[in-house]
């Protein structure tokens, strides 16, 4: 008996050490190719310039009766994020069930589902945006579609994993009541995964707000374009203003989503 314990222990050691060595090799490879960190002599000057800009934000940009101001672009960003997240949170559900190992009889079915989700995720937002621009032209709608499609990949993955982690005892109870598949899903599984669904969706929403800033690059609307121009033009006071806007908005969103999460979980 002691013999088997010793064997198990040795096996464990071997396993652990192989993993450690593999990881170590990867890290040595990763770090060996990197240039040394060094601070630039001009860093101080630059940081000063940046911070003085951030500290003295360009309040004129906050509101402009013409409408090309912080408020409007932020609002547009919000629209894009809301609708993009909404689309993806609905479309991702079938993908999530498809990709969850415990929802499919055969492992390869869920593997295919996982692959499809990866493929969706891998498609860069910018190229998606380009595709949708070819369909609907530049503007927020293209941004919404790009974001909505892209987010399916992430939400589907996270949802799928929370389905995999689920406790199945209550679905057994439903089964024993003679419920069919859909009823089991609705009464036993949905209430269980709902909190993580909501939580991930809200999380994705926050990310989308940030991603929507990037979509500005391709004219898909939002705060992205103004931010990039301000950065490229080294107008730090405007960058500061935009940053304040984003922080305030995300903080409010965060507060609201925390409240919702508390209600639901």
């Amino acid at each position: 008996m002691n013999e088997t314990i010793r064997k198990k222990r040795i096996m464990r050691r071997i396993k652990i050490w192989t993993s450690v060595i593999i990881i170590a090799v990867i890290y040595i490879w990763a770090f060996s190719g990197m240039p040394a960190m060094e601070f630039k002599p001009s860093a101080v000057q630059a940081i000063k310039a940046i911070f003085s800009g951030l500290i003295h934000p360009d309040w004129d940009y906050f509101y402009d009766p013409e409408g090309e101001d912080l408020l409007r672009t932020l609002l547009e960003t919000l629209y894009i994020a809301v609708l993009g997240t909404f689309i993806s949170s609905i479309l991702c559900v079938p993908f999530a069930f498809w990709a969850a190992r415990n929802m499919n009889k055969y492992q390869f079915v869920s593997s295919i589902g996982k692959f499809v989700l990866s493929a969706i995720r891998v498609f860069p937002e910018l190229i998606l945006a380009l595709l949708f621009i070819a369909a609907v032209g530049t503007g927020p709608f293209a941004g919404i579609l790009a974001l909505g499609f892209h987010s399916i990949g992430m939400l589907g993955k996270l949802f799928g994993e929370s389905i995999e982690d689920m406790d199945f005892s209550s679905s057994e109870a439903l089964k024993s009541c003679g419920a069919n598949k859909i009823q089991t899903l609705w009464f036993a599984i949905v209430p269980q995964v709902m909190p993580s669904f909501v939580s991930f969706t809200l999380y994705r929403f926050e990310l989308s707000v940030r991603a929507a800033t990037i979509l500005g690059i391709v004219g898909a609307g939002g705060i992205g374009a103004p931010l990039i121009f301000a950065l490229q033009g080294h107008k730090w006071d405007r960058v500061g203003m935009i940053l304040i806007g984003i922080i305030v908005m995300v903080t409010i969103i965060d507060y609201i989503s925390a409240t919702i999460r508390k209600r639901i979980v």
Partner: protein
Amino acid sequence: MIEFKDVSKVYPNGTKGLNNVNIKINKGEFVVIVGLSGAGKSTLLRSINRLHEITSGEIIIDGKSITKARGKALLRCRRDIGMIFQNFNLVKRSTVLRNVLSGRVGYHSTIRTILGLFPKEDITIALNALKRVNLEEKAYSRADELSGGQQQRVSIARALAQEAKIILADEPVASLDPLTTKQVMDDLKRINKETGITTIVNLHFVDLARQYATRIVGVRAGEIVFDGSVEDATDDVFSSIYGRPVKQDEMLGAKV
């Protein structure tokens, strides 16, 4: 009437859960199944409503083979069998009422149940079931706000609301205090008597088995080693079900 015909169940990892079981349970009986941990009690119970698929043999309920039932017929069969689980298996985040109502889903169309459009009578049935287990005022509490004993009673209410013809209860009183235990067992017994519902209960406790059962079935290593009335179930019988008065080391090393 429930009839097992040469039923065997082998788990994917090779464990023999049931080994050639033959047994007939008549309408209205109150059967208590006893046996060691890992003997196969749960497997036996769960085979009845096909929460576990059996490997060979056939189980016939009221003349119809549930083993061969497919699709709607299977759902119909299951609807007529209520189950009470050891760990309640409630949807913790839903309200008590919703949990009880979920016992009614087998009676209605999918779309109707999903939209929550249960007919008035169903709500009355559910509330009555809750009343019967003395939990009416908790109907709109979330299930996870209840104490263990209360949760167990919700799961009984769910089985009641189902208006089943058979109730299966897998260790319904584990982790309940003696008084709650008594109450749950009394409930089951009373319902059994009043409605003539066939009741099959897994129990760990010899005294409870003696007190409530009309028939006792002993299981060991997937086989039925005793089947008889309470009077026949002497102390000797029990120690044979549980194996000889075992030395601890032996028994727990080998089992589970």
